[in-house]
C-alpha cells in the first residue's frame, strides 16, 4: 500500500500478547485512517455500552495516510476510544512528531486492549516491541517522563504519555506527545491511566511510500501555495497563533465571559495573541510537516507564574482568561503549563474552573468545599492553584478533576455546567454565532469546535461570508463542515489547512498518495460515513436526540453586553432542519436509506 503502511500492531496489555495484522485496503479507502479508521475498528470490536475505564474498552492510536509525508501540516494522529468524560466515541487528535514515528516504525494503528497489572510503558522499535516496567515513572509529570524515557530508550524516540491527571483517572485528562502536544478532549488520558499504561515510546526507521510521486509532488506544491497565500493560513496564524481570535470574537460579541454569563469582556485584549506576541512569545513552532506554525513557544519571567512551554491556544487563553474574568496573561500561561505538565485538557479545565467560580460566586459552594481556595471570578492566583491541584489530584482539585458537569451535579446545579454531552464547550458563544451552537449540540463528542468549525464562514468569512446571526442555511453549513472535517481528520491533516485548501485539493493529495481515486465528493462522503458511524455508536451507547442540546442558559438567557447583546441560541429551530439535511429521522436516528447510501447498512 502507499500512504498507508498496511499493518496494524495489536497489544493485549493484560496477557502481554503482541501481534500484527494486515490493514484491509477497502477499509482504508472507505474510512481513510486516523479518526475514521479508528472508529471503524472500535465499532466492529467494542460494545458501545462498555465502561470506558474498564479493561474491555480499547485504546487506539491511529495515524492517517498523509501522516509522515510532507503533505502540508499533515503529521497528526488520533486517539480513538470510548471517552470517559462524554460516554461517546472519542477521537482526540494531536500533532507533533509521534504519529509519523509510528508509521516509520511500520504501523498505521496501534490497538491496545485489556489492562496491565501494574504500571508499564511500551517501547516499540520497528518490529521489536517490549512491554516494560514503569513503576519508576508513575507520578512523574509529562516533561520528566519524556526526558526519563528518552534517556532510557533512544534520544530520538518519540513519546506519548500521561501525567498525574491520567494516572488519577481524571475525566479531563489528556494524552501528551512530544512533551507539548495534546490529544486533549473527552478524557482519553484517563483511559490510558485505567490501562496502567504510562507511555508509548516509538522509534521507526522505515518509510512512507507514494503511489504517484510526480502527481503527489504537484498536489503538495499546489496545496502549499494556496495555504501560504491565504491571509490566515499563510501569515496570521504564524504571527499571532490561534489566540488572535480573542479580539475578533470579542468584537463580534461572541467571547463567552464569566462561565457564559455574557459574550463580551472589556479587557480581553490583555490575554490576546497580539499581547502574547509582544511579551511572552519566544518563537512560532510547527508540528511535523507543518507550514503554518501556529504553535507558540512561550516563557513567563514574572516570578509568581514563572515557566516555559508551549501555548496558549485561543481556547486556553479564553478558558483561563475571560471565562474566569481574568485578564492576567502570565497567570493564563502558568495554568496552561500546568495542564501540559500534568496532562489535562485545557478547554475542559478552563470551563471547569469557570463553573466552580460561578458555584462559589453564587454561594453554592463555600470555602469549606474548596478547602480554603477563594475560587471567585477574577482571582487569578486561585485559578492557577485550582489547576495545579486538579493536575495532582489533591484537595478540591479531586472534584475539579471530574469536569464541570459532574462537579456542578455534585452540588445540585448541573445547569451551571457549560457542557454538551458533559464536555465543556470552547470559546465561541452559541448565542452570538448560531451555526456553532448547532455544531456543539450535534457534535459526536459533545462540546467541541474543531469538528464543524462554522466560525470560519460565520465570523472570519472563510471561505465565504455567512451571517452569524441567521439560522438560514446553517443546518447545511454545519453538516458540510462536519463531514469535511471528519474526512480531513482521517487523513492526518490539520484542520487549519482549510485556511487555504478544500475537498478538491484533499482529493488530489489522497489520490496521488494512495493510488485510490478520490474526488472532492467521494472525499466528503467518506467524512459523512465516519460521522454517521460515530452517530450509530453513540446511539448504541445510550445517547438520544435529547442529548443534542445546549445548556439552558444559552437557550434562555440573552447576552448582556457587547455587539451580540440580546441574542439567544435558536437551536430548537435549527435541530429538526439539521436532522433532515443529515437524512436522519425526527429522533436523530440515521434512516436505512442514508445508511445504505453510505455503505453502512
Amino acid at each position, binding site marked *: 500500500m502507499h500512504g498507508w503502511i498496511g499493518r496494524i500492531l495489536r497489544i493485549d496489555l493484560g496477557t502481554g500478547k503482541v501481534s500484527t495484522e494486515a490493514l484491509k485496503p477497502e477499509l482504508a479507502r472507505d474510512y481513510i485512517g486516523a479518526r475514521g479508521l479508528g472508529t471503524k475498528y472500535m465499532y466492529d470490536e467494542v460494545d458501545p455500552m462498555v465502561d470506558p475505564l474498564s479493561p474491555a474498552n480499547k485504546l487506539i492510536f491511529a495515524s492517517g495516510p498523509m501522516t509522515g509525508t510532507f503533505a502540508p501540516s499533515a503529521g497528526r494522529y488520533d486517539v480513538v476510544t470510548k471517552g470517559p468524560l462524554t460516554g461517546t466515541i472519542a477521537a482526540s487528535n494531536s500533532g507533533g512528531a509521534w504519529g509519523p514515528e509510528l508509521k*516509520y516504525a511500520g504501523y498505521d494503528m496501534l490497538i491496545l486492549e485489556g489492562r496491565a497489572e501494574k504500571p508499564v510503558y511500551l517501547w516499540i522499535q520497528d518490529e521489536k516491541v517490549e512491554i516494560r516496567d514503569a513503576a519508576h515513572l508513575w507520578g512523574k509529570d509529562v*516533561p520528566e517522563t519524556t526526558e526519563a524515557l528518552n534517556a532510557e530508550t533512544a534520544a530520538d524516540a518519540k513519546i506519548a504519555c500521561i501525567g498525574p491527571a491520567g494516572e488519577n483517572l481524571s475525566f479531563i485528562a489528556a494524552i501528551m506527545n512530544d512533551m507539548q502536544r495534546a490529544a486533549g478532549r473527552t478524557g482519553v488520558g484517563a483511559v490510558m491511566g485505567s490501562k496502567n499504561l504510562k507511555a508509548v515510546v516509538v522509534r521507526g526507521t522505515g518509510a512512507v511510500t507514494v503511489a504517484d510521486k510526480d502527481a503527489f509532488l504537484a498536489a503538495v506544491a499546489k496545496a502549499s501555495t494556496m495555504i501560504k497565500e491565504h491571509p490566515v493560513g499563510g501569515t496570521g496564524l504564524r504571527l499571532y497563533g490561534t489566540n488572535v481570535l480573542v479580539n475578533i470574537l470579542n468584537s463580534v460579541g461572541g467571547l463567552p465571559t464569566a462561565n457564559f454569563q455574557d459574550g463580551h469582556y472589556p479587557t480581553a485584549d490583555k490575554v490576546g495573541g497580539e499581547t502574547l506576541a509582544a511579551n511572552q512569545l519566544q*518563537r512560532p513552532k510547527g508540528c*511535523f*510537516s*507543518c507550514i503554518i506554525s501556529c*504553535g507558540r513557544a512561550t516563557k513567563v519571567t514574572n516570578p509568581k507564574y514563572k515557566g516555559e*512551554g508551549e501555548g496558549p491556544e485561543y481556547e486556553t487563553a479564553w478558558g483561563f482568561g475571560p471565562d474566569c474574568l481574568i485578564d492576567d496573561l502570565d497567570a493564563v500561561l502558568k495554568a496552561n503549563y500546568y495542564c501540559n505538565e500534568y496532562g489535562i485538557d485545557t478547554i475542559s479545565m478552563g470551563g471547569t474552573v469557570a463553573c466552580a467560580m460561578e458555584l462559589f460566586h453564587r454561594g453554592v459552594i463555600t470555602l469549606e468545599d474548596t478547602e480554603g481556595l477563594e475560587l471567585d471570578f477574577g482571582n487569578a492566583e486561585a485559578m492557577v492553584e485550582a489547576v495545579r491541584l486538579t493536575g495532582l489530584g489533591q484537595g478540591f482539585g479531586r472534584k475539579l478533576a471530574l469536569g464541570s458537569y459532574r462537579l456542578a451535579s455534585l452540588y445540585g446545579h448541573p445547569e451551571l455546567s457549560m457542557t454538551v454531552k458533559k464536555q465543556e464547550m470552547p470559546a465561541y458563544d452559541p448565542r452570538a454565532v448560531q451555526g456553532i451552537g448547532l455544531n456543539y449540540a450535534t457534535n459526536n463528542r459533545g462540546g467541541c469546535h474543531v469538528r464543524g468549525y462554522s466560525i470560519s464562514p460565520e465570523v472570519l468569512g472563510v471561505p465565504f461570508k455567512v451571517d452569524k446571526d441567521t439560522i438560514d442555511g446553517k443546518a447545511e453549513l454545519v453538516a458540510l463542515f462536519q463531514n469535511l472535517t471528519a474526512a480531513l481528520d482521517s487523513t492526518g491533516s490539520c484542520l487549519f489547512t482549510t485556511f487555504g485548501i478544500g475537498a478538491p485539493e484533499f482529493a488530489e493529495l489522497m489520490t496521488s498518495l494512495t493510488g485510490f481515486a478520490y474526488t472532492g465528493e467521494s472525499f466528503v462522503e467518506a467524512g459523512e460515513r465516519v460521522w454517521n458511524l460515530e452517530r450509530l455508536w453513540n446511539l448504541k451507547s445510550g445517547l438520544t436526540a435529547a442529548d443534542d442540546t445546549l445548556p439552558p442558559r444559552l437557550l434562555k438567557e440573552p447576552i448582556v453586553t457587547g455587539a451580540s447583546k440580546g441574542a439567544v441560541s435558536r437551536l430548537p429551530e435549527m435541530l429538526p432542519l439539521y436532522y433532515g439535511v443529515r437524512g436522519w429521522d425526527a429522533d436523530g436516528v440515521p434512516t436505512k436509506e442514508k445508511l445504505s447510501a453510505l455503505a453502512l447498512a
Partner: protein
Amino acid sequence: MSMMLMIHPDKCTGCRNCELACSMEHEGNFRPKASRIHVYTWEREGFSVPMMCQQCKDAACVTVCMPRAMHRNPANGQVELDADKCIGCKMCVQACPFGCASWDFQGLQILKCDTCDGSPSCAAICPTHALEWVEDTISAQARKRSFAAKLKNAFAEV
C-alpha cells in the same frame, strides 16, 4: 566564490519538512532516517536546530577515505561522494566531527548532504527560510549585519 547552506535556528519551527524533502529527493519516499539533514529539538524550550554537512574546506571525511570516494569537487567546492568507489568502511562516519556523515543500515549507503547538486530541496521547502542557499561570503556578511543590528539596538537602549 561558492554557495553554502546557511542555517538560521532562530527561524526554525522544528517542522522537519527539510528532512522529508531530502528523503524524497534522494530515496523517492519519506524516510527521515535516510535524510541527509536532521533537526534537533529541545522540547522544553521549544528550540530547534537543523544540521547537515557543512562542506568543510579541510574535510575529515575526505582525508580518511582510502578509496577516494569522498572527494572535493573543484568546480563547485563541495564535498562529494562517488558511491561507486565507496567500500562502506564507514571511516567518514567516524571522522566527521559534526556527525554529518552517517551509515544507512537499510540502504547500505553513506548519507551525506550533496546539496542536491546545487539546488537544495531542504531550503526550497523550508516554510520559514531557516535554511538558505546563498553565496558563502555574502551570507556571512548578512549574518554579521543582523548581529550588528542587534548590538545596535542593545546599545541604543543604554
